[in-house]
């Protein structure tokens, strides 16, 4: 298996499995988006630019040696945190949420960056710690995770906040968090759930969760999305209604069809068979990530590949779980498919870094 493309004077670090599957997924995404946006060519052109740009970034970020990321991980985190603060001050407010920073040419959702920067930093912080991770390091790590979670959560953005939180926890867990600590805190969380419910969640978030538990609560309020999404998926049947022929999406019954609920559009138009093919691409990418993690050159690389790929899996997990009506609606895009700049780019960045971690071998040391 080649890990490099060799040219005459230089070689580039490259993983053809990930690169091809991600490119295919992105291109399929463009077609899905064309249908979900009811044939809005502008949306698709804009998205294609992001895809092209993203693939380039992925390729570029694959080139530096993992040590580059290890050394500069604290700097990345600092930059990401500063951008979060900048968002807090200069951010653009949409629908009562301040998540976006206008960079002139691009509106950046800064939490998408911290979603990448945090796990890399934690990997670089924990890669040389003894097993199991001591209580002091555990608490330091948890403190940082909670601080960053709070930054994202307060925008407010519960969905991304949870992903960021999980990203941190994945690294801590993979790095060797002690089982004793895990069991103790699990018990603690169970006991403190009522407290979180009452003081941490916004009323609309509580409503969403309540509606999720009992959808007959209000069919045209919060549950409208889920009802319409289920109708879209269910009416697709085994082989779907055909490309561009999904009535749920085309007649606007399906809300957020271009972003959160694009899975339902695909299910409606391509049916269960289409969904199986789509998901197999994601499974292939995840399996490839396990393989790469197993073969990574050192603990830092392993942790980073593991953490970043799990963020990818979690995002997909929340998105599909929400669209098929198993998890509450929190607002989560489908990686590489949903419309959107920052979240799309964040996954190209993540996979660029994953490829870097996987393809660079250390010459010395064993």
């Amino acid at each position, binding site marked *: 298996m080649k890990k490099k493309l060799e040219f005459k004077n230089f070689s580039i670090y490259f993983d053809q499995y990930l690169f091809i599957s991600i490119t295919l997924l992105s291109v399929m995404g463009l077609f899905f988006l064309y249908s979900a946006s009811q044939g809005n060519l502008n949306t698709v052109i804009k998205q294609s630019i992001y895809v092209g740009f993203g693939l380039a970034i992925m390729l570029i970020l694959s080139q530096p040696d993992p040590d580059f990321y290890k050394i500069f991980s604290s700097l990345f985190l600092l930059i990401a945190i500063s951008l979060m603060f900048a968002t807090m001050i200069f951010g653009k407010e949409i629908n009562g949420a301040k998540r976006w920073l206008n960079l002139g040419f691009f509106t950046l959702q800064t939490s998408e960056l911290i979603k990448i920067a945090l796990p890399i930093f934690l990997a670089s912080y924990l890669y040389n710690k003894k097993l199991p991770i001591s209580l002091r390091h555990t608490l330091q790590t948890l403190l940082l995770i909670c601080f960053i979670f709070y930054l994202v959560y307060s925008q407010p953005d519960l969905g991304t906040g949870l992903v960021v939180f999980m990203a941190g926890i994945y690294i801590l867990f993979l790095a*060797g968090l002690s089982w004793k600590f895990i069991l103790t805190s699990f018990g603690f969380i169970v006991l403190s759930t009522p407290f979180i419910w009452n003081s941490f969640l916004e009323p609309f978030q509580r409503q969403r969760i309540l509606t999720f538990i009992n959808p007959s609560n209000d069919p045209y309020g919060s549950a409208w999305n889920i009802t319409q999404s289920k109708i879209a998926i269910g009416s697709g049947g085994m082989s779907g209604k055909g490309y561009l022929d999904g009535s749920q999406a085309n007649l606007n019954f399906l809300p957020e069809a271009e972003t959160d609920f694009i899975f339902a559009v695909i299910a409606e138009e391509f049916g269960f068979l289409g969904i199986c093919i789509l998901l197999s691409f994601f499974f292939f990418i995840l399996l490839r990530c396990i393989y790469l993690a197993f073969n990574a050159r050192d*603990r830092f690389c392993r942790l980073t590949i593991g953490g970043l790929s799990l963020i990818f899996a979690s995002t997909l997990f929340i998105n*599909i*779980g929400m669209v098929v009506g198993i998890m509450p609606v929190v607002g989560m895009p489908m990686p590489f498919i949903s419309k959107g700049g920052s979240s799309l780019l964040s996954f190209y960045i993540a996979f660029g870094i994953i490829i870097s971690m996987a393809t660079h071998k250390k010459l010395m040391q064993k």
Partner: protein
Amino acid sequence: MIDLDERYKEKKSFFNRLIIVYAFFSFAFTFFLYRTYSLQVSEYTEYETAAIENKTKEVLVQPIRGIIYDRSGKIIVNNVPTYDLIIKPSQIKNIDSFLSDLSLIINLNSNELDYVKENFDLKASYNRELVVKKNLSEIEIAKFEVRSYRFPNAFIDVRYSRYNNYPKLFSHAIGYVGGVSNDELTNILSNQNLQQIETIFKYSNGFQIGKTGIESTYDNLLRGKFGKKTYEVDARGRLLDEMQFIKPIDGKNIFTTLDIDTQKVAYDQMDNRRGAVVAIEIDTGSIVTYLSTPSFSTNSISNGISSSAFNALIKDNNKPFFDRASQGRYSPASTIKPAIGLFGLENNIIDWNFTIDDPGYFILPEDQRVYRGWREGGHGKVNLNKAIIVSSNTFFFSLAYQSDIYKLIDYLSKFGFGANVCVDCFNPDKGLLPTPEWKINNLNFGWFKGDTVNLGVGQGYLSATPLQLAYYSSILANMGKSNELSFVYDKNEKKKTYIQSENISNLDWKKLHHSMIGVIESPIGTAKRLQELKTYTVAAKSGTVELVSTETKEDYKIIRENEGNRDHAIIIAFGPMPNPKYAVSVVIENGESGGSVAGPVAIAVLNSLIDR
């Protein structure tokens, strides 16, 4: 740096933990895939239906109501088109400039402009039509049609109004249409398995239902069936493509047995006096004339009437809304005498030769109470024939006195008294055929012999509607055979009955007819003034309904100062004799003389029917 052993342990721990997390995700995604499978495959039908329901909207299409004809095929009630100017707001970019262009051709008043501006956005967003101006004149239509190429998003469409060509002649017979209550509408639509939804109206007034008369009794036939248009809609409810159109089935036309010309004669004869006229074709029981006066214009009720005009009608002392023909209760008075005479013959109480001496009164043996005739001094020697011609009360008092009340009531009921005699009349009253039980229950008094005596001259508690009197008249004419009355002749639905009698022969019937002819033709007949009004023979029996009991003519002169105290004039008649085709009844409230006031109306109606 960590040593090799540590490295190995770390690597193993990492792998185990990564596998744990991945195992969790594999499990979750498998579950999601299963979930998608159950939505798409197991529950497919349910969600497919839901998706179709989502994207389709059904709109009802109103049917056109049936036309109502008279018996010679002339239209009584029709649907009259009015022309409305309609626009498609979703196609119009700038409504202000559109309206200013349009108002160069068609004058729009400020109400119409305001209405358009208020509703424009809403109609545009739902892709619905908007009526700009109702009831265009011919000139406006012509002006618009010539320039219609300049207004591709406006068009003229027809909307109907229900219009009675003779609005005051048939106020009660045909009745009128009006708005529908929610319950009625739900009921009408559920007969067609439809829900109450948006509707494309053919009538300017929207949903309507027959409220009274034939419009009401035949509403089911006249109404027709709603059609249905199915549109594709988006989530906002905007109409997109028309997918299916099940055309409405227009209502059935109703061919009545009414005769416009005769109805008009009756109306003119009544001249707005309070009363009723009913005429019947004897062979079929078909109602040819059905009039209650004073009347009102059904068109103004159906198509909008000012509330002051409506209140004036409601408060009018002459009660124009009251249908006297089938709901007014009047004592039959002397018109009952032929039936009492028949009862006497049937029960062998009298025969045609039986004679009494009429001194002008009858004294009830039980209490010596005096029952007077209409003529002081009486009529001398009286048999049944003369008793009918001169309308001797004494003869019938004494005949009734000898009758068994239960037998008498039973006999009268065979002539339709106390019963519904019409198949398709709107809300007919049954009148009152009193029984001893009725009297004790309602008046708390036992039945006196005097009550039976009063029944013999059609006074007292007995009451009947003009419709029942006409039915009674037709049975007399038809020698005991009866046809249920109706506005629409349907052989199969008609109940024909025949009064079974043991002791009454055809000859008896002929003699009775002869007596009733005598009422007009005899020089001593109570309606002899009618002789000159016709060219054929008519059988009749007049009556005068006493409202206030008076002892002498002088007393009556005093009480008649108040018009409401005056006697009702009443007559039943049939002709041409000897083979009568039509039977008629006329009641004129406070008209005083059955023969000379109600009589001419009856003859005019018969003339109109027979002379043709």
